[in-house]
């Protein structure tokens, strides 16, 4: 035991502990501190202060040593994170490098991580589409995973709660499959995106292109100005951290807000080894932390614990929290902990050209694009695969420069050039089905620098994914053809799962403690003062980008925790 001194133990005692400061941990911190709880926020990485710690944010392209490209030594040393689209010379300092934090790929899995205050909320794609009951009712209707213990009506007010604070740009599209929310003005579709949207409306039933809802301040409200954030300036350099706070991140929003309450203690460099379970009291009393600088082991205590370490690391913490009561991992009476991990299938896209609308283009940059909500198997099962997919849809033109020749003519060619025709593209985002064969576990032998076992990851595609991918190519090819797009080029790849950065599950919510880890309030069934509200809690994945749902689930659970504490149900 690190320190048994009574005064010291008192100093290490809080009302609440939040493990992780990323997109969900930030929300737990904000809600708990906002309700007057003295809250310790533990972050395994370094601190990243808003603006101050965005070293590249205001750099011009020519101010980067390699003008944005990464040295071959960096790429060679980082085959995993090197495959991530956002990993570049301007953002590499926010990503975990392959050698820093190893894990065991029992099957290929690109685990993309951001170990710092704010986590991956600095790096996310900022897409924020709500779920509907077509998503929450999916497992029960189609007979996979387990039934979600919540429905849209349970989470709808919390979607509104987080949307108002985070700032979501979008339009009221009136689609049952993608409910409207509390929106700032949406970013407009450009001419070719609008053309395709209009075309689908007249030629298809229930297929739509909308402006993708995104966490950008298109027109800030007072609540955003109070956070010190300003209007999105259309830089499209979000992965550097935004000096305007134009997009939502823990760093720009929830963490400084929690700090301002005076109730938050933020402790970076704190690797959580395990959750402490008190056999006598029958509840969790705190967490064991290893200081990543000093390697000192320290215990912190609290009445409630929120686990927001990011989906797979939350599984790791729970699996590593063993006791006589929980010999197989925290709350793992059912044996499903670490299992039913799923993700989003991003392994296909399709591009084409459009010959029309030549006199129109755009000026400036958009932080979002078009979005095609799921149209397959929404109202009823209609294909030979389960569930469906959403797609991004975007159109662009560019100035066509000439690279031929040398000398004065080349210099001229690099400046002059006509605008290209419109190019269009759609990215596949498929739901995957959680299965017990897709799982994570603790390695029996290998440990990291802090004595925590390495995570074995065994996650793979299945036949349903292949069928769905084929359908995406077929349907989008048909839709593009029908819209008069030419030179249609479908493309599929064999990327490993993980590169979607939407890994979910392992500690799923459910009605039955025999088949799930968490109840309808994200409490561990067998230990009600521990809440898991990050991606690990997801019973199914649907196909929307998941962060908004994590935020809403977290705010809902945190406010429930506060009520339960008041009622004395958790002490």
């Amino acid at each position, binding site marked *: 035991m690190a320190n048994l001194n009574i005064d010291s133990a008192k100093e290490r005692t809080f009302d609440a502990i939040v493990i992780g400061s990323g997109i969900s941990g930030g929300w737990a911190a904000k809600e708990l501190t906002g309700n007057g709880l003295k809250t310790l926020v533990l972050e395994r990485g370094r601190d990243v202060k808003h603006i101050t710690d965005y070293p590249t944010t205001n750099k011009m392209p020519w101010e980067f040593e390699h*003008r944005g490209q990464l040295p071959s030594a960096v790429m060679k040393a980082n085959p995993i994170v090197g495959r991530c689209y956002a990993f570049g010379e301007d953002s590499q300092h926010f990503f975990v490098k392959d050698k820093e934090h190893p894990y065991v790929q029992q099957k290929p899995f690109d685990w993309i991580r951001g170990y710092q205050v704010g986590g991956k909320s600095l790096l996310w794609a900022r897409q924020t589409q709500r779920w509907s009951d077509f998503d929450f009712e999916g497992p029960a209707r189609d007979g996979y995973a387990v039934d979600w213990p919540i429905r849209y009506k349970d989470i709808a007010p919390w979607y509104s709660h987080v949307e108002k604070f985070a700032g979501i740009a979008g339009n009221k599209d009136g689609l049952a499959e993608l409910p409207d929310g509390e929106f700032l003005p949406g970013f407009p*579709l450009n001419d070719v995106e609008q053309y395709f949207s209009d075309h689908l409306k007249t030629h298809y039933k229930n297929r739509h292109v909308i402006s993708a809802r995104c966490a950008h301040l298109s027109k800030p409200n007072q609540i955003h100005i109070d956070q010190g954030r300003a209007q999105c300036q259309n830089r499209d350099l979000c992965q550097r951290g935004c000096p305007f706070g134009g997009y939502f991140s823990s760093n720009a929003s929830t963490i400084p807000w929690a700090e301002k309450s005076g109730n938050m203690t933020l402790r970076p460099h704190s690797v959580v080894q395990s959750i402490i379970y008190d056999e006598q009291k029958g509840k969790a009393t705190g967490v064991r932390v290893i200081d990543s600088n000093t390697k000192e082991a320290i215990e912190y205590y609290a009445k409630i614990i929120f686990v927001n370490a990011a989906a797979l690391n939350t599984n790791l913490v729970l699996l590593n929290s063993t006791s006589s009561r929980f010999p197989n991992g925290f709350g793992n009476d059912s044996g499903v902990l670490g299992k039913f991990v799923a993700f989003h299938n991003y392994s296909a896209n399709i591009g084409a050209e459009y010959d029309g609308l*030549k006199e129109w283009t755009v000026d400036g*940059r958009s932080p979002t694009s078009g979005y095609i909500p799921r149209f397959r198997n929404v109202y009823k099962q209609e294909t030979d695969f389960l569930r469906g997919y959403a797609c991004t849809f975007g159109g662009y033109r560019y100035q066509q420069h000439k690279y031929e020749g*040398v000398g004065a003519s*080349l210099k001229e060619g*690099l400046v002059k050039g006509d605008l290209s025709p419109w190019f269009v593209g759609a990215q596949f985002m498929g739901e995957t089905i959680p299965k017990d064969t897709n799982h994570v576990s603790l390695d029996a032998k290998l440990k990291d620098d802090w004595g925590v076992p390495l995570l074995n990851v065994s996650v793979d595609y299945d036949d349903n994914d292949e069928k769905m991918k084929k359908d995406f190519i077929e349907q989008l090819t048909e839709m593009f053809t029908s819209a008069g797009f030419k030179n249609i080029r479908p493309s599929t790849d064999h990327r490993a799962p993980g590169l979607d950065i939407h890994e979910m599950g392992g500690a799923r919510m459910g009605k039955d403690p025999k088949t799930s880890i968490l109840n309808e309030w994200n409490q561990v069934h067998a230990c009600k003062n521990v809440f898991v509200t990050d991606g690990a809690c997801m019973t199914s994945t649907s196909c929307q980008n998941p962060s908004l749902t994590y935020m809403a689930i977290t705010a809902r659970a945190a406010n429930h925790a506060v009520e339960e504490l008041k009622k004395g149900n958790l002490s």
Partner: protein
Amino acid sequence: MNRRTVLKNLALVIGGAVLLPSCVGKDGTSYVQLKHVSIDEDGQRLIADMADTIIPKTTTPGAKDLNLPAFVLLMIDDCFDKKGQEAFVAGMKAFTAKIKKEHGKEFGDLNAKTREAILMAIEKPQVAKAKPQKNTPPDPITNFYWGVKGQTVFGYTNSQYFMTKEIVYELVPGRYIVHYPVSKLKLKTA
């Protein structure tokens, strides 16, 4: 310009770019200290002269004015993998020998017209070559040429000069306007 002095500006800084470590050659000229690839003073001079032939000084700055030779060397040193570097150096040696054989001079000692013609003959060979066999490696000289040209053009179009004077880069557009007439873009069209 005296070819022996052309690299004097190599270590100068353009717009906050990182200062490259340099060393002084036997003739007093500064050369770039490379970490991963071996390109001697003659090779560095050749690359600088090629870069300045590809992007020459006209009414606007050329490669040497913009310190692009140092950038090209930096990219080859840092961003080419080992295989790419070996192929680049092999092509450079073959090119040097060919110029010496055919012209009896170094590339930089030739007049601008000849230098341009030499590079254009590599880029667009007049006589169609025999169809390359499958899996044959690209011609070493052609590969070397595209290495220099690619990095020179990349450095040029990403230079402060180009991005502030030729095609202006906006760090903070502050707008996204759709349904925007192409005519209002004021593009320099071909």
